[in-house]
Structure formats: structure tokens, C-alpha cells
């Protein structure tokens, strides 16, 4: 059969299939399913956003009504009562520092492991990637002891160190995948030009693996930003509190002022939503390269 004949036959099959009664029912079920998941993903957030603009009285009377007057003062109150500004700043500093450090050291390691042959190379690759599966939350006792012993308990430095470390396996894994795909010839050309190990890394490999590095970085940033367990365990005072910890304290701070608490929650998730809108391609690519490649 010629290619055209195959195409026509295929299209006939596809068209026939689409008009059978069974396929129409399946089609309807498909759309119900897809739209249900859609509503499920957005509805609670939208509900919370609307509730955050009502008065407490309106919320009690009817959880689904729209506010008569949009209560933007809930937000002013949320921001002043919760001290959310400081916590955001702490989160930004910690997440940025941990991301920068993590990306620098993991791309260095990925360069060594993915482009040079040495004894134990394979073992290291396996070790790093199996680190992804370690249930980190189980390591509370040793992390607490370690961080306290080196004097970083209740310091931003402690969280930066822990976050840099816990992202090591996944970042190395992602960056390694990208570095393996940089052609050997490019590096050999640089060797002939007299570029040494370090120069080749900074001028050839690092720039050419940028896509992977941005991906790993976005991922790492979100992990740090959203991390709760160790922020909770390794800090005690308000001055180093991150935004995720802040959310935990909202319930106490606002007690029965639910609408202001909701406003504070909305404010605290806005940066994640913004990051997602801006970097969704990197985030999705990061997931994909992390799990499919390799």
C-alpha cells in the first residue's frame, strides 16, 4: 500500500469510530472526567479567594455567597497582623541562597560524573539518584542533632545548608541528563584551544546545559519555598520564620477572624502561583526530564 492509501484507510477508521454511539457516550464521560478534575484543581482556591473578601458574618451565613462589599481591608489586616512581609523576605533569602548554592555544586558534580571516566563513577550516579527516594522526613533526629552541633539551629544558615543538601540528588540527576547530551566534539575543540578543566566547564558545558540548570533551579526553588518539616524543626524564633511556618501560626494569630486568615493564606500562595505562571514550561520540563530521561 502506498503511504497515501494507508493514510486514507486510517482516516476512514478514525472517522467511523468517532460516530458510533459507544464512542459518543465515552466521549461525554471523558469530558465529565476532565472537567471534574479541572474544577477540583481550581474551585477550592477560588472559593478561598472569594471568602477572603467577605466579612466573617457573610461567611457564616452562606459559604458561597459573593461579598456585598469587597472587604480588601481583610488583606491590610492580614498583612499587618501576621508579619507576613518579614516571613516572605526570609523565605526569599533562604530559597534563593539554597538554590544558587545547590545549582552551583550539583552542576559541578554532574560535570565530573557525566563527562569523565573514573573508578566508582557508576556507583556515584546510582547513589545520587537513589537519594531521590530517601524519605527525608524520617531524618529529623540526625538533621536536628547535626544542625544544632554546628551551631546553626534557629539560623537562616541552617535552613540554607539543609535545603542545599536535600536538593542534591534530584538536581544532580536532572543536570546530569542534560550534560550527557552535550556533544563530546565541542569539549574536544575547547581542549585543542588549550582550555583547561575549569575553563571548559564555565565557558562550554555550563552555558550549553543552561536549559537543564534553569529547570533544576526552578524545581529547587519551589522545593525550598514550600518546605515545611525542617523549617518547623530547625527554627524557633520569629525572626527566621519562613512563610510556610507562618501559615501554621495563622490559626493562632487570627483565632476566629477566618476571613483575614484566608487573606493571609492567599497572600502566601501568590508567589508560588506567580512563579508557576512565569516558569511553567521549566517546571513541567523539570519533572519530565527527571523522570523520563536518565
Amino acid at each position, binding site marked *: 500500500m502506498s503511504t497515501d492509501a494507508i493514510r486514507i*484507510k*486510517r482516516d476512514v*477508521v*478514525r472517522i467511523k*469510530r468517532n460516530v458510533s454511539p459507544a464512542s459518543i457516550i*465515552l466521549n461525554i464521560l*471523558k469530558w465529565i*472526567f*476532565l472537567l471534574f*478534575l479541572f474544577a477540583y*484543581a481550581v474551585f*477550592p482556591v477560588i472559593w*478561598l479567594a472569594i471568602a477572603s473578601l467577605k466579612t466573617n458574618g457573610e461567611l457564616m451565613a452562606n*459559604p*458561597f455567597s459573593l461579598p456585598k462589599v469587597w472587604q480588601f481591608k481583610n488583606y491590610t489586616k492580614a498583612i499587618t497582623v501576621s508579619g507576613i512581609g518579614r516571613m516572605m523576605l526570609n523565605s526569599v533569602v533562604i530559597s534563593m541562597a539554597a538554590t544558587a548554592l545547590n545549582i552551583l*555544586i*550539583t552542576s*559541578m*558534580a554532574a560535570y*565530573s*560524573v557525566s563527562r*569523565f571516566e*573514573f573508578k566508582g563513577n557508576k556507583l556515584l550516579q546510582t*547513589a*545520587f*539518584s*537513589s*537519594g*531521590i*527516594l*530517601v*524519605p*527525608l522526613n*524520617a*531524618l*529529623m*533526629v*540526625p538533621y536536628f542533632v*547535626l544542625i544544632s552541633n554546628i551551631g546553626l539551629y534557629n539560623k537562616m544558615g541552617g535552613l540554607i545548608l*539543609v535545603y542545599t*543538601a*536535600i536538593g*542534591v540528588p534530584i538536581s544532580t540527576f536532572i543536570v546530569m541528563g542534560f550534560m550527557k547530551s552535550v556533544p563530546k566534539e565541542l569539549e574536544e575543540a575547547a581542549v585543542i584551544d588549550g582550555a*583547561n578543566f575549569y575553563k571548559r566547564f564555565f565557558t562550554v558545558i555550563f552555558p550549553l546545559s543552561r536549559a537543564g540548570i534553569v529547570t533544576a533551579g526552578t524545581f529547587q526553588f519551589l522545593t525550598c519555598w*514550600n518546605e*515545611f*518539616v525542617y523549617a518547623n524543626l530547625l527554627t524557633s524564633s520569629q525572626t527566621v520564620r519562613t512563610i*510556610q511556618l507562618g*501559615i501554621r501560626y495563622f490559626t493562632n494569630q487570627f483565632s476566629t477572624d477566618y476571613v483575614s486568615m484566608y487573606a493571609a493564606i492567599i497572600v*502566601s*500562595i501568590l508567589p*508560588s*502561583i506567580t512563579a*508557576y505562571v512565569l516558569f*511553567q514550561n521549566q517546571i*513541567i520540563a523539570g*519533572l*519530565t526530564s527527571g*523522570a*523520563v530521561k536518565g
Partner: protein
Amino acid sequence: MNVKRDEKIGVLLFLLPVLILFIAFFVYPVIYLIIMSFNKWSGFDAPVFAGLANYIKIFTDKVFIRSITNNIIWALVAGFVQVPLAVLTAILLSYKPRGWKVFRTVYFFPQVISGVALATLWSAVYNAQYGMLNGILRILGLGHLEKNWLGSLDTAFPAVLIYWVFYVGYFMVIVLADIQSIPEDYYEAADIDGASRIRQSISITVPLAKTSIVTCMLLAMINGMRQFEQVYMLTNGGPSNRTSVMVLYLYKEMQNYAYGTSSAAAVVLICVGTIVILTLRNTIGRPNY
């Protein structure tokens, strides 16, 4: 200048920071936990060797048994309900229905919100007086089903367990990317043979996307083993420890200065996690990690 020698030093130097962190934060902690689990330690005075006392204590503690059971249920639901739902969604989106990219973006969206924020959001949904769930029931005329979802013994754990099952975005994205890398020819050939879409999904898509599906199951189940935030924020293990999980248990032991017991619980968690990984590997297939 000796290029090879220069390279050797470079490779080592570049590996060093990651190697140190990996040993300090992944290898050493596990060894530390194993040693501590055989000791009695309050965190202040020196640890005292206690043999199997910690293990005996946790395995005779009803709360810990309840926690393990909850974690296993959690992992099974994640691996065998959430992931199949994600695979189904990925298959549906792989045919690129109208707006599939919008669906993909929206499905993934809850994943960027932190576990704590999502849990707080859902505690508002479940709230007995003004929550969204009771509100919906009232609108549907099912007011008699209204409940204090997180406060009742029979609904607390299902409520904590169920809300994230329909957040399939994370696994859907992984599987979808894998499905999209399957050559179109296979489906064309199947079309010509008259295989239905469902048949094609079972015989072509799922087997060829198996690695990513297994990877997702693995990630989902490990995730089920290390749950903390959701339970901590929604119920803190209550009512009467119905919703406790292993990480919450070891956290509470630690707050009580029972570091040895906490370590033993952590070792059990790691063992159960390893068993899950090995079982999956040897039955369903090899994941990517």
C-alpha cells in the same frame, strides 16, 4: 602541564562539595538513626545502650501500629488509585482534545502550592460550621449528611486521605511526556487493524509508558510513607490518634525527648520504604531511579 593530572584533580575538586553534603545528609543520618535506635537518649545526657527496647516499645504501642497501617493505606491509595487516575488523564490528554494544554496547566497548578497551604485550605473546606463541603451538601439538599469531617472518628482519616487523590497533575505530566514520545506509527498500524482506542491504550500506551508509570507509582508510594504536613495541619493525628502517621509519630516522640524511640520509628519507616521500592522493582518493573 599534564592535562590528565590536571583533570583528575579537577574532577575530584568538583565532586567534593556534593560528596560531602551527600554523606553528611543522606548516608550518615541513616547510620546515625540505626545506632540511635538501639539507645535510650533524651537529647541532653549521654545516650545509653538499650538493646531492642525502643523497637519493643513502638511495636507494642497502638498509636505506632495505627500509624504504620495508615501509611500503608496511604501508599496503596497513592500508588493504585491516584497514579492510575493520572495515567487515565494522561492518556485522555495525549489525544490532544480541545484545550489540552490548558487542562495540563490547570491540573498541575495545585502542585506548586505548598502542602501546608493546601492542608489549611482543605481544613477550611472541611470546616463544620462554614466549610465548603457542608455548604455543597446543603445546596444539594443533603443537609443531613453534614458533619464535622475532621473531628469524627469515622470520617477523619478518609477526609485527610482523600482530598489529594484527585490532584493528579504531577504524575500526569510525567506520564503524558512519556506517552507523547511513543511513535505515532504504532497507533496508525493499530487503527488499520481496527483496534479501538481503549484497546490501543491497554496494548500500546501502557506497556510503552511503563517505566514512567512505575516511576510515578514509586514516587507516589514513597510520598505516602513520608506524609507529615497534611496530617499535622488538618488533625495533628487526632481524633484519638485515628489519623496518625509514622512521621508524625516520630516527630511527637522527638518533642517528648525520646530520641531513641523516634529513631527506631524512623528506621522502621526507612525499612518499610525500602521494602516498597524492592517489591515494586521485582514485580511490576524497574523505575528510573
